[in-house]
């Protein structure tokens, strides 16, 4: 059973610079050929300040925390039994290469289904520009732990 008393726990915030090389690597890894996501000039011509952070890349920057499995360790979870259940993004401002972003994650909920065979944990993360404080986005991640009958 995941420890319900930890609901509301704030994880250590971290700030990370958006590097254009990482954005190009992400474009390569996802088969993205649109020059807006590869080339600074194409991005500027499209009206962006620099190569934009693609829609789901904020989740990757969240993984760039010095301690990416902090939540899994806090809840004493086994990586082999974890699944990503849901992910959502609410966008307030575009982020681009060169920006420094601050991620503030919080464990907002834990609940179970199927008599405890599946346990869900919800991490909500506020993303702001580290230099200006401007609100960039809100992320919501629902993870699922598969429990076997003995641990259910």
């Amino acid at each position, binding site marked *: 059973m995941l420890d319900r008393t930890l609901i509301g726990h704030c994880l250590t915030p971290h700030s990370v610079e958006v590097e254009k090389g*990482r954005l190009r*690597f*992400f474009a*390569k*890894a*996802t*088969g*993205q*050929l*649109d020059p*807006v*996501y590869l080339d600074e000039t194409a991005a500027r011509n*499209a*009206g*962006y300040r620099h190569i*934009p952070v*693609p*829609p*789901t*890349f904020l*989740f*990757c*920057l969240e*993984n*760039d925390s010095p301690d*990416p499995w902090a939540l899994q360790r806090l809840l004493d979870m*086994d*990586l*082999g*039994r*974890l*699944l*990503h*259940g*849901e*992910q*959502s*993004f*609410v*966008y307030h401002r*575009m982020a681009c290469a060169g920006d420094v972003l601050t991620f503030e994650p919080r464990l907002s909920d834990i609940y179970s289904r199927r008599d405890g065979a599946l346990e869900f944990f919800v991490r909500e993360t506020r993303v702001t520009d580290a230099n200006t404080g401007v609100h960039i986005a809100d992320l*919501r991640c629902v993870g699922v732990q598969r429990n076997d009958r003995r641990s259910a």
Partner: protein
Amino acid sequence: MSRIERDQPTDNPAGPQPLRLAPLDRTTLALYAGASSDHNPVHIDSDFARRAGLPDVFAHGMLSMAYLGRFLTDWIPQSRICRFGVRFVSRVELGTALVCSGEIVDMAEHDGERLARVEVRVTCQAGELKVVGEASVLLPADD
């Protein structure tokens, strides 16, 4: 690696067009692990996956969502996306050829623009649902 193959334009040119991807291989999963900083070994280490009781490594859910993001930004500029959320329905195994698709299901006026609700999904070639979700996008009023 994924290739871009497009369906012919349909009679609804205003909506997003399906994005068809090449069958997933281990190289794609390794590249995605590196690029995304998601180094969970269930996606890149077959030995770890088998010890965890899985038949083999499987794709990151967020790889499918990244493809859905491409599907959306191929259609409209990213700055028009207000919300984007999905539920991961079932594991995406190696060799699966994914297809991203979706359509506008609702439209509302919003400050002189139109806010479109788009249902999105990722399926395998046989049609089995892998990821389902929704995006809210702003469209120009005269579109």
